[in-house]
């Protein structure tokens, strides 16, 4: 067959190759979407104060929420929850606190990443306000009490009685964090 036909087919296949390379990158937002829908990775949801206030608490159910924390290597902080667990009713808004303390002589900044187990619960764990929405900067040896206001929504599967909320603080560049905080807050960081 002619060289023309070869060229045409080669070109088509090359397009497939390029498209598949792009698809590899497309998997990133697709994966995010997938996590959002299924709760994979323990991604939590967010909700506004006003919406949350509308829901009525389901007082017939008790759910235990456990708190835990960790700091990634490279961030010289102490970080832990100020309560080990609380028992809440689905639909009720609760506020809890974590404490971070810098052990560094320099200004440092960290970004907290939340994760909820089990998967079934993560979608139903909705934060109204959280220190993880923006990066946190600590002055040398500063100690900060940080709040999380959340609601476990009423659709939480009935089988779930215990939910674990974990935060891991990651080191972020302190200077960069200072000016990105505003934008992050505005765009609504992934939570």
């Amino acid at each position: 067959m002619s060289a023309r036909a070869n060229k045409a087919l080669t070109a088509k296949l090359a397009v497939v190759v390029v498209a598949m390379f792009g698809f590899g990158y497309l998997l990133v937002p697709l994966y995010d979407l997938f996590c959002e829908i299924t709760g994979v990775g323990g991604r939590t949801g967010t909700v506004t104060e006003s919406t949350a206030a509308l829901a009525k608490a389901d007082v017939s159910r008790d759910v235990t929420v456990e708190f835990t924390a960790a700091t990634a290597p490279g961030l010289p902080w102490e970080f832990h929850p100020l309560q080990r667990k609380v028992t809440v009713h689905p639909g009720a808004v609760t506020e809890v606190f974590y404490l971070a303390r810098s052990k560094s002589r320099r200004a440092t900044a960290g970004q907290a990443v939340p994760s909820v187990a089990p998967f079934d619960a993560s979608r139903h764990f909705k934060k109204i306000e959280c220190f993880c929405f923006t990066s946190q900067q600590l002055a040398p040896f500063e100690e900060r009490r940080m709040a999380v206001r959340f609601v476990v929504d009423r659709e939480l599967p009935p089988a779930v009685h215990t939910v674990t909320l974990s935060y891991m603080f990651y080191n972020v560049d302190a200077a960069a964090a200072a000016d990105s905080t505003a934008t992050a807050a505005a765009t609504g960081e992934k939570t």
Partner: protein
Amino acid sequence: MSRTASALTPALAAALVLASAPARAAWDLNLPPPVTPLAAQILDLHNLILWICVVIFIGVFGVMFYSTYAHRKSRGYRAAQFSHNTRLEILWSVIPAVILVVMAVPSTVTLIEMEDTTRSDLSVKITGYQWFWEYEYMDSGYSFYSRLSTPREQIENRAAKGEHYLLEVDNELVLPVGKKVRFVLTANDVIHAWWVPKLGIKKDAIPGYVSEMWAVIEKEGVYRGQCAELCGKDHGFMPIVVRAVSAAEFEAWLGERAASAAGAAETVTETVTIHPGAAVSDVDSTVTVGG
């Protein structure tokens, strides 16, 4: 054993070890004896699918080896020339499908049970580090690190290897028997995996994320395992040792350990702010720092 081995030629050493092996009874062929209901179910499931596979295998290769014996040119066999048999082809697509369903049913049942972490009696948080583990009893906040305790000399062949070579730690994870223990896993640096074969549980510990699994240990004893996800240089050297004791013994042990740890640590007291509508019970507002 290995002391003599290193002095001899490998082949000779092998012969020696192999010959003396029955005395050590280490030619294990199957999963270790289970000590949790889940591990027992997995063992049953494993045996079931293994035997189904063996039967299929013997069936198919019985036919094939009969054919290689009987349908040889050297035996004067003349080749038939058929190349299709629709009935047969449908049959051997459908029968495997049916067998698969037979396997899928018990697998599904077991899996659903494995994923059910609800109604646990206690929670233990497991954190993987390069290259050791941290355990935290979430209800008391008492935590400790657990590291390989095999001496360097044994690993470098300068000393005789002990009975639990590479499967021994400084601080064992103590758990009560007969209680549903819920494990919450995470990691600090890279991905690790926590695995104790006799408990029948293995799960990845992933930095930034928490995941769960559970076990009810039915028999007191010491159960050993290892990290099961490549995590860097000393991946082979971060064993897991679980000591299962009676519930009473466990309470006593934990009480004592937690008390002495709390005494040493600084204590922060905080109150939890409760918003209208939230009914809070069992609020533990005392947090031990640095335990």
